[in-house]
């Protein structure tokens, strides 16, 4: 049984519909790339998974449980760690406090995150607002890991990062995948880099999942058609 399963999800922002018929399934330990052009509904799908947006219709299951009716914190406690679009670090809190605020018991603790991103340890007592964009991105990833999730969701997690750091993060994702068996849902614009880690892919267009399959099966025609490259 899938770890995460979305079936026929529809969702609205006020009166305007953003998701029409969204299907997606993600297995334990799998890395799934969620792809699509700008404004097609990737982030909206993430919001539905994390219950930050209520699905009007359809079913969302995580770890065998229907999460459609749960409040966001309950869903998170089931083991979903979110690195949201735009980072959303707690601006007035220090780096250490940002991490501590999210902490739940498990293998990931401050030391482990500091090992992954040494820069964060250096900036430990600086407020998140004063971090550079890339530093904030690292903080957001570290924060999600601190919840010790079963599923890590990275929505544009490498946006605005320097190439070296991006490589580090991709390496870190690959390591997470290899060493911990963490399931990961990835949104990123770089198909090349996604290809390095992703097992499977889902493509969204105008709020519908239009393609799902092994990442390896993505051919140039498909990407040209749905992603414009």
């Amino acid at each position: 049984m899938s770890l995460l399963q979305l079936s026929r999800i529809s969702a609205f922002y006020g009166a305007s519909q953003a998701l029409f018929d969204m299907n997606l399934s993600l297995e334990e330990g799998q890395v799934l790339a969620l792809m699509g052009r700008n404004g097609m509904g990737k982030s909206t799908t993430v919001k539905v998974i994390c219950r930050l947006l209520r699905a009007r219709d359809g079913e969302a299951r995580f770890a065998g449980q229907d999460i459609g009716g749960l409040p966001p914190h309950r869903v998170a406690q089931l083991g979903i760690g979110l690195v949201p679009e735009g980072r959303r670090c707690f601006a007035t809190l220090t780096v250490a406090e940002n991490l501590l605020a999210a902490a739940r018991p498990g293998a990931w603790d401050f030391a482990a995150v500091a090992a992954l991103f040494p820069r964060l340890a250096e900036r430990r007592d600086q407020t998140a607002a004063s971090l550079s964009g890339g530093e904030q991105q690292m903080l957001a990833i570290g924060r999600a890991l601190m919840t010790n999730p079963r599923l890590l969701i990275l929505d544009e997690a490498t946006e605005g990062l320097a190439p070296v750091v991006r490589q580090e993060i991709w390496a870190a994702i690959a390591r997470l995948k290899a060493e911990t068996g963490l399931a990961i849902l990835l949104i990123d614009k770089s198909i090349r880099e996604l290809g390095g880690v992703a097992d499977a892919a889902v493509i969204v267009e105008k709020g519908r999942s239009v393609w799902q399959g092994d990442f390896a099966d993505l051919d140039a025609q498909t990407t040209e058609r749905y992603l414009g490259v």
Partner: protein
Amino acid sequence: MSLILLVEQTLNGLQFGVMLFLMAAGLTLVFGVMGLINLAHGSLYMIGAFAAAAMAQASGSFLLALAASLVCAAFAGVLIEVLVIRRLYDRDHLDQVLATFALILIFSEGTRWLFGSFPLFLDKPEWLSGTVILPFGIEYSLYRLAIILVGLAVAAGLFWMIARTRVGIRIRAGENDREMIAALGVNISRLYTFVFALGAALAGFAGALVGTIQSVQVGMGEPVLILAFVVIVIGGIGSIKGAFIGALLVGLTETLGRFLLPEAFALVFDPATARSVGASLASMSIYILMAGVLIFRPKGLFGSA
């Protein structure tokens, strides 16, 4: 004017400041931490005082009365948080202003309906009555001394809770981004209910402690509310330290202003004019202080956000 009197007035100013801090602490907590403008804070203060007066009447025990103030105000806090405030976190400040203004109306008239239109009796216990002699031979009320100590303890406790504990960190995180902290698995609703109840309990407690040497009556909360807002704005919103320093500043300005301004004007004007002009200026002094502080430090003394 003797030096002793000046020292005594300074002490009075500090004491008044600590008293203000008790009132302001809960407000700055709710206001700074949850980003909620709670005009009904004064009503919670009143509820505390009325609960204490009723309990003191029924049981004759001051400690039970204080306990009643804490419990009743906290309960009222939980009630309004769950029924009203909770729906307002993601609204702008204005909706909060209107809703909590409505709550003032309900609470004030509700209290009057329950307890009648006349002030209630609430007095300090025997063991806190009388005066003590401080250095310089200053005779000082034991009860006021006790208020100072309680105020300091509350300040320390709150400071520790917000700055050091996990709960404090999460509360502040929620202040930055409520949705995000929830998405990280923290039950922010429950946390906020807790904070609101704590703020309410502090307000009620202040109402009982201060009401004991003031008058327990409907409408007692509004002047205090304004003062408390002045205090936390001077200190910088959300900062417990700021509220504390702000309270002392306001306490000193208010007390010394009332005392010194008429004397100062007497050096220039005839006594009658000096008294009247001095008193007028003294009435405005804390507002002048607040405006002055904000003009030079637009985020208050310790404000960051």
